[in-house]
């Protein structure tokens, strides 16, 4: 994480990133001051409930969303400058996987044409080399060669997501950002795709950032995790210690909402139930953003906004009650 100094620049370094939307009802602070450092080779999960800004954050990192404030450095280069100077070079380094695989492919193209497109855009290889590359890509995502002549609509959900992963890998990127790549899939297929991500990361040495709201999956595959709440980072750190000993009350509540498949564990398990909905990002509460729903809220939480600081699991949390040695336990 941030305290580990590396000679190699981190894959992603976001500083003070803000994305605000001007709407008819007022200013929506979808992402409101996020600092994020993701080292190369990490498998990073961004979690949080719907509307907390995780997708907007992912889109802002790759430049699909204009950032109101703050900078993003990718592989040590300023993202905005890099895209302005060399958008093809940027595309070869960083790729994005969309939530809806079908929507992210042209309905006029076959799978073969879809996969070939990035190679054509970057004028890579001749016809036979491209054909060979397509075969490699299909092999990588475990799809049969017969899908090449089909149209994306005729594929199953899992196959579609495999195609979109294969397309993202066509340019050999070092960084892959995935916006909820699993939420459109049913549970059994989700497991296959998760395993595919894990295998690809090991096989190709990718840095993967995955936006998810399924904590079980993050626990399974991600080496590190960022928990977001209402446009800000609530807690971040290495997955195992964060999940074993969460410092932020929100993370604790989120984790307690994950059911255990074993009824002997599930039945007596204490669960934290949060009251109410998250406040509107149009009008965040003063002080800690979680203070309106926090079960262990203290007077100071409603006044001063907590900053990210080191906590017991060697990650960071934005909570007044979480100290390096001890933290609030609900």
């Amino acid at each position: 994480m941030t305290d580990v100094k590396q000679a190699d620049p981190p894959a992603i370094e976001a500083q003070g990133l803000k994305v605000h939307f001007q709407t008819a009802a007022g200013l929506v602070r979808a992402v409101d001051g996020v600092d994020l450092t993701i080292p190369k080779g990490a498998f990073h999960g961004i979690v949080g409930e719907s509307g907390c800004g995780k997708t907007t954050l992912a889109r802002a990192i790759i430049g699909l969303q204009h950032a109101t404030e703050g900078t993003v450095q990718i592989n040590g280069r300023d993202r905005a400058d890099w895209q302005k100077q060399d958008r093809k070079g940027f595309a070869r380094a960083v790729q994005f996987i969309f939530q809806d695989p079908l929507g992210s492919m042209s309905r006029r193209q076959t799978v073969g044409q879809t996969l070939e497109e990035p190679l054509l855009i970057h004028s890579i290889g001749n016809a036979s080399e491209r054909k060979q590359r397509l075969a490699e890509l299909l092999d990588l995502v475990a799809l049969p060669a017969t899908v090449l002549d089909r149209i994306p609509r005729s594929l199953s959900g899992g196959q579609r997501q495999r195609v979109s992963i294969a397309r993202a890998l066509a340019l050999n990127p070092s960084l892959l950002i995935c916006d909820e790549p699993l939420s459109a899939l049913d549970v059994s297929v989700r497991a296959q795709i998760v395993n595919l991500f894990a295998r690809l990361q090991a096989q190709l040495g990718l840095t993967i950032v995955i936006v998810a709201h399924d904590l079980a999956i993050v626990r399974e595959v991600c080496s590190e995790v960022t928990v977001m709440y209402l446009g800000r980072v609530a807690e971040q750190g290495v997955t195992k210690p964060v999940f074993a000993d969460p410092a932020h009350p929100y993370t604790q509540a989120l984790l307690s909402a994950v059911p255990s498949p074993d009824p002997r564990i599930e039945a007596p398990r204490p669960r934290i139930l949060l009251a109410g909905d998250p406040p509107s990002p149009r009008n965040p509460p003063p002080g800690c953003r979680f203070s309106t729903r926090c079960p262990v809220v203290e007077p100071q939480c409603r006044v001063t906004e907590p900053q990210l600081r080191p906590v017991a699991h060697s990650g960071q949390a934005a909570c007044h009650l979480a100290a390096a040695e001890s933290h609030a336990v609900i």
Partner: protein
Amino acid sequence: MKNWPWLILTPAIIFVLIGLFAPFLMTHDPTVQDYKAILSPASWSHWLGTDYLGRDMYSRIIGGARTSLVAMVFVLLAALVIGVVIGSFAGYVGGRTELVLISIIDIALALPSLIIALALIGVFSGASWSWMSDYWKMIIALTLAWWANYARMSRAVVVAELQQPYIEAARVMGASHMWIFTKHILPHVLGLVVVYASADAGALVLAIATLSFLGLGVAPPTPEWGQMLVDGMSYIEEFPSLVIIPGLALTAVVVSFNLLGEAFALQKVPKAVRGGLLRRKKATRAAEETARAATEAKV
């Protein structure tokens, strides 16, 4: 294409073929006047009779088909190109440019295209335009009256397509605007616009005839259906065929192109389903049939 109503294509194809091969189909020179055979009825030498100047009606109908076809193709192509370019540009660029272009398109659409064409021909009749023949004045006036619809449609398609997530995906892959436009958006635009144009062709033939009828289009000696209607009007009591024949020809062309447009609109088949996939589907279906027949035979 299975289920494609091939029959509907026939009248339109016949019109195009007649237009293309008109010189070979005509029995007489359609401009030559024969005062010995004025207003003669149908006979072996004049299949559809002659008009008030003794010109062969059959040859004039055929020649009129050619005049209409050539003018229609010119206007349609020019209007399509102008419309697609302006409309796509407006939709793709957006912002203030789009607003300005849309206002121009809306103004052009608010006025009936025939009125615009008439006004433009009026403008072109000035001395400074005398180098241009009446025929080209009509073509240009109609083009300027006709492009707005194509621009409006092109813009609508471009705006709708730009919102699709796959456009974003293409941007992420490093595609340039030119790439996205030509590879992803233009095919959609052309798909719609060409279908519309096929139905529009009939209306355009009618507009060309209308302008000639009003004496503003094709100059008299050239055979033209609208012109023939005017010529025949004075004799409508005694020789109604002089009006009925060109009228029928015009009606047939309008109806045939409308049918064609309708058929296109109903039968839009996604590209990937044509060709290979369809053949394979047919093959598997045939294989299933034979397999079923074989099992039934065994039973």
